[in-house]
Each structure stands twice: as structure tokens, then as C-alpha cells.
């Protein structure tokens, strides 16, 4: 066995550069080989600090291994392979390059041994994922990508401020549990939670991901939110607030997905829902719960990528994305239907699928810690997952009414990617030991007991009955559902324009007053340019006054 001393992220960056600018014939084979080589490197990272590099007088730890870091890096590398296969023949080279650089940055976060290195890869992840979104190529994708970038850079600023504060406070940038709930920890937590799509900014995920290309969304579904889960595991295990944040995300995801009409937005809300389960697990914090969060991240990446692949295949073949315009596709896309259904059953945690063996760890941990209320909520939410993703997605896309569309299954590389990930979902469901062996703590848990299988089947099948009984209430309408992003997409600009108008009027009045007083003449009509200049001058003064006030306040309290 060899020993990895360079971060596997570098391999991804090198491959991405060669794919984007190297010989075109090498690009596509390289896109498949690079993730596999990276997977080998990931498994060569031993425990503890393995690699440092001098950086600005600092010995930056860019390679530190342990079981949970390797687990996340493993699934990221597998995901990069599956995504590259799905995108192989359809995506432009530069999009594959951006996606692999994005995957590499996520792997870089996995092995970051200090907060500074973590931050650097964190920001690179935001950068490359924005490029992936922009490859969507539409004006909507451009604007959604810009909003995504701004929000994630804002998260980065919070994270950076928190990291600096941690350094000032403790003199150490070591990646360790930041408990105590003081300000530096709160800032870091806020920065991480933005990437986890926690409230109140969960909307970025449904805003941005569905605007990417059919294959871009597959990559996007995997990395950003799951690195946030890893960061939570490393930095905030057992933080009680996370239980409530996670529960909010779980039910938010279900309700918004139930209302949604766009198939990939349904899946995006469902990402929030699933990450909610992981966040709850981290919040509970017991060894079983942390195992549950890590295991669920692993299986989730597989089945959510699979769901996004099947939705991407439908989009690629039909050009349509709204449930109200789809339906009946099972007749001509049987393979996509079967694979999409395997993904849907896995996310619903049906026995013999991957979700069953991972979600039950977290739910079991809630019961084990005596958190009865949380346990009841998680069980109800498990039924809700089947409702919003397990049945709703395949039903409205592949069955329901006949849309009359008869597209064939997608090209071979897309088909193989879906088949591979379907097999992986079933493999882990049938042989959970394969996954449990990778988990950070030893697993003393048996998922397949008669009791567990019977109760889970009761729960899910009766949730299914509820779906079909309530079907008349769930007729798809061509609508969206407002979210907190309304505040920065509508209310913010409105307030800004109103402020500008008020300032312009005040400026004009002041100018009239000044001119009347000084010259003693009747007020000169004020042109548009002059009005705006005055408004801007007043705005600058206002901002300056605010800054001054803030500085005085800080110096008096600090």
C-alpha cells in the first residue's frame, strides 16, 4: 500500500486543466480516469497529519486523514466518476473540467488539516460550482448563478471572519470541535450552515441547481451541502441547535417539494430535506448519530445523483422540466423509469435499498438518546420523504397522465451512469456491512430485523396510500412557491429604489432651498442627472455616518 503525501485535490485540478485546455482526444478518457486515480489516492491517506506546506509563514496542513474524512472523500471521488460518465459525451469539455475542479475542491475540504486550508478549498468550491451553474447557458442560469455566488461568498466572509476570530482567541487553527457557543464559533457555524442550505437561506439550492445543465445538476447535488455536513461533523458534533435546524430543513424540504412543479426543483428541495436528516444526526452527536449522518451523506450522494440523472435524462430527451408537461414516459424510457424508481425507493429508505441501512442509524440514535419527540418527528418525516420524492417524482414524471411524449432512453453513457448508481444503491442496501465498515465509529447495529422491516413497510406503504387518496389535492399547477429569497430578489431592490427616490426628493428640496437662499432667485428646475448625483451624495453621507457610528460603537464595547 502506498502513502499519499499530496492532496488528491491537486490531481483533480491537474486533470481539469488538461481537460479544458489539453488535447481534445484525451479529454474524455481523462475525465473518467482522474476520479478513479483520485479514489486510489484517497485510500492512500493515512490517519493523522500527512502533509504540510509553508504558506505566508504558516505551516498549512493540507492533508490530514481519518475515517470520516476518507469516507466523504471516497464518495466524492465515486460521484465525480459517475457524474463524468453521465456527462461524458454531451457536456462541453470546459463544463466537465469545472465540475471536476469542483469535486476536487470538495475532496480538498475533506482532508483540510487546518481552518485556513479548509477555507481556501471552501471558496474554490464556490467558484467552480458557480461556473458549473453558468454552463446552464440561459439568462436565468446566469442570474441564478450570480445570486448563488453572492450568497456563497457572503457565507465565505462569515466563515473567514469566524476563523480569524478563532485564531485570535486561541492562537490555533486546528480543525477540532468548536463548542461553547461564543462569537467566533457562531460565525463559523453560520458560514458552514449557509452551504448546508439551512434556514433562512435554503432557497439558494432550488434557485440555482435546477438552472444547470442536465449533467451539471448531477454534480451540484453532491458536493456543497455534503462538505458542509462533514464540516459540521468535524467542528460542531453534538451542537444542540443543529437538531432544530435539521428538523426545520426536513419539513421545509417536504412541504416545498410537495408544492413544486419543476421536477429538478422537487429534487433540490429534497436535498434540503435529506441534509436535514444529517444535520439532526450531527446535532444529536452520539457515536451512532454521527455514524448515521456520515452514512446518510454517503448513500444520499448516490441516490440523489441517480435521481438527478434520471431527471436530467428526461430533460435532455424532452426539453421539458415541468411535471404538468410530463407524464407517461415509462412507455418509451423504461430504463430511465426503472433507475429513477430505484433512486426514489432508496431515498424513501425502502428495505433492500441504501437509504434503509443509513437513515435508520440516525432515527435509531434519536430513540437511543431518549429524544422521543425528535424520534416521532423523524418517523413522520420518513413517511414524508416517500410522499414528496419517493412517489411524487416518479409518478408525475414517468406515469400519471399520458403527455403523448415518446422519447427513447438517453445515450449509452447516461444509461450506464444510471445503471451503475442504481446497482450501488441496491448493493449497499443488501450488504450494509460494506458501508458500515467505512464509518468513523464501530457499528453495533443490525438494520434487518423483522420488527424494523415490518414497521418501515407499514409506514411507507400507508404513506403511499395517503398519496393516492390525496392525489386530487396534488394536481400540478404551473406555480412556484415564495421563499425567503423573495426578500433579496423583490423586497431588497424595492427598498433600495424607494430609498433612492426619497433621497432624490430630499436632495432636490435641499438644493432648491440652498439656491433660493443663496442667489435669491426662483428655484432652478433640477435635471435628472443632478437629482441622482445629489441622491448618491446623500447616500454616501448616510453610509459614512453609519460606518462612523458602528466604529464608535465597536470601540466603546471592544
Amino acid at each position: 500500500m502506498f502513502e499519499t503525501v499530496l492532496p488528491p485535490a491537486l490531481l483533480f485540478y491537474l486533470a481539469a486543466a488538461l481537460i479544458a485546455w489539453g488535447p481534445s482526444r484525451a479529454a474524455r478518457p481523462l475525465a473518467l480516469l482522474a476520479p478513479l486515480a483520485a479514489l486510489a489516492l484517497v485510500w492512500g491517506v493515512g490517519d493523522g497529519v500527512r502533509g504540510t506546506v509553508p504558506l505566508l509563514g504558516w505551516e498549512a496542513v493540507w492533508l490530514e486523514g481519518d475515517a470520516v474524512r476518507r469516507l466523504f472523500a471516497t464518495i466524492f471521488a465515486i460521484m465525480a466518476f459517475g457524474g463524468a460518465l453521465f456527462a461524458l459525451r454531451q457536456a462541453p469539455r470546459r463544463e466537465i473540467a469545472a465540475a471536476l475542479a469542483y469535486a476536487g475542491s470538495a475532496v480538498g475540504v475533506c482532508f483540510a488539516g487546518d481552518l485556513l486550508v479548509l477555507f481556501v478549498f471552501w471558496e474554490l468550491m464556490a467558484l467552480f460550482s458557480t461556473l458549473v451553474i453558468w454552463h446552464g447557458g440561459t439568462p436565468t442560469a446566469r442570474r441564478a448563478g450570480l445570486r448563488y455566488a453572492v450568497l456563497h461568498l457572503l457565507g465565505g466572509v462569515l466563515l473567514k471572519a469566524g476563523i480569524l476570530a478563532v485564531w485570535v482567541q486561541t492562537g490555533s487553527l486546528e480543525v477540532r470541535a468548536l463548542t461553547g457557543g461564543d462569537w467566533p464559533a457562531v460565525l463559523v457555524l453560520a458560514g458552514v450552515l449557509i452551504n448546508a442550505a439551512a434556514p433562512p437561506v435554503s432557497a439558494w439550492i432550488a434557485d440555482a441547481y435546477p438552472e444547470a445543465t442536465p449533467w451539471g445538476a448531477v454534480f451540484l447535488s453532491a458536493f456543497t451541502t455534503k462538505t458542509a455536513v462533514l464540516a459540521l461533523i468535524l467542528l460542531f458534533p453534538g451542537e444542540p441547535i443543529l437538531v432544530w435546524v435539521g428538523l426545520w430543513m426536513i419539513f421545509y424540504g417536504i412541504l416545498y417539494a410537495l408544492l413544486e412543479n419543476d421536477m429538478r426543483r422537487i429534487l433540490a428541495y429534497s436535498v434540503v430535506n435529506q441534509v436535514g436528516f444529517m444535520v439532526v444526526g450531527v446535532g444529536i452527536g452520539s457515536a451512532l448519530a454521527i455514524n448515521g449522518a456520515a452514512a446518510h451523506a454517503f448513500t444520499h450522494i448516490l441516490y440523489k445523483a441517480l435521481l438527478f440523472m434520471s431527471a436530467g435524462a428526461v430533460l435532455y430527451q424532452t426539453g421539458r422540466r415541468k411535471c404538468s408537461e410530463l407524464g407517461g414516459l415509462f412507455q418509451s424510457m423504461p430504463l430511465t423509469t426503472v433507475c429513477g424508481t430505484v433512486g426514489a425507493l432508496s431515498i424513501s429508505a425502502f428495505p433492500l435499498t441504501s437509504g434503509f441501512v443509513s437513515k435508520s442509524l440516525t432515527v435509531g440514535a434519536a430513540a437511543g438518546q431518549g429524544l422521543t419527540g425528535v424520534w416521532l418527528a423523524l418517523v413522520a418525516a420518513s413517511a414524508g420523504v416517500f410522499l414528496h420524492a419517493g412517489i411524487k417524482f416518479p409518478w408525475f414524471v414517468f406515469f400519471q397522465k399520458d403527455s403523448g411524449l415518446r422519447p427513447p432512453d438517453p445515450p449509452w453513457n447516461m444509461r450506464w451512469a444510471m445503471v451503475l448508481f442504481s446497482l450501488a444503491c441496491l448493493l449497499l442496501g443488501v450488504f450494509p456491512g460494506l458501508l458500515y465498515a467505512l464509518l468513523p465509529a464501530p457499528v453495533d447495529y443490525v438494520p434487518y430485523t423483522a420488527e424494523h422491516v415490518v414497521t418501515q413497510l407499514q409506514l411507507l406503504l400507508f404513506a403511499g396510500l395517503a398519496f393516492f387518496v390525496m392525489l386530487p389535492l396534488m394536481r400540478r399547477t404551473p406555480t412556484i412557491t415564495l421563499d425567503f429569497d423573495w426578500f433579496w430578489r423583490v423586497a431588497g431592490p424595492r427598498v433600495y429604489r424607494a430609498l433612492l427616490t426619497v433621497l432624490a426628493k430630499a436632495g432636490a428640496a435641499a438644493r432648491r432651498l440652498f439656491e433660493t437662499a443663496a442667489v435669491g432667485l426662483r428655484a432652478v428646475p433640477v435635471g435628472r442627472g443632478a437629482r441622482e448625483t445629489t441622491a448618491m451624495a446623500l447616500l454616501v453621507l448616510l453610509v459614512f455616518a453609519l460606518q462612523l457610528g458602528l466604529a464608535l460603537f465597536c470601540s466603546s464595547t471592544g
Partner: protein
Amino acid sequence: MSREKQGHWLTRPATIRRLWYAFGAVLAAVVAAQFFVHVHAVAGVDGLFGFHAAYGFLSCVAMVLAAKLLGVWLKRPDDYYADDRHDV
């Protein structure tokens, strides 16, 4: 009627009726299975016979109704943000 006009066999009313019967039988079977499998209660109430079936059904009905209610308040036409007056 020819097979062509009837469409795919899965979409025929007779098939759908049979699927409903099969689904009903499976539902009955997973509840009846509890005669043979002892369920350990976590919260007390979940030890009751058929708890998970009833809980799964009722919580889903509640979630659909909650979503419906939320929709009354927050649903908008899907070109809501397409209007440049709103968007940035």
C-alpha cells in the same frame, strides 16, 4: 377494440383495478405481519397494533394539507420572477 387503441397494458382500467387490489392485499399483509412480530415501543404509543401504518398515513395527510395551506399563501405563477421589475 384493438390493442393499439387500448394503449399500454399498464394504463388499462382493468390493470389499474388489479393493481389496487394487489396494493390493498399488501397493505393488509404488512399490518397483519404484526401478529407475528413484536414491536418494541420507543414513545409508548408506537407499541400499539398498526401504529406505524396509521402514523404514516395520517402524518402524510397532515403534510399534504399543510402544504396546501402554505400554497394558498405563497404560491405564485411560475413566471413571477421572470418579470424584470422584480429580478436582479
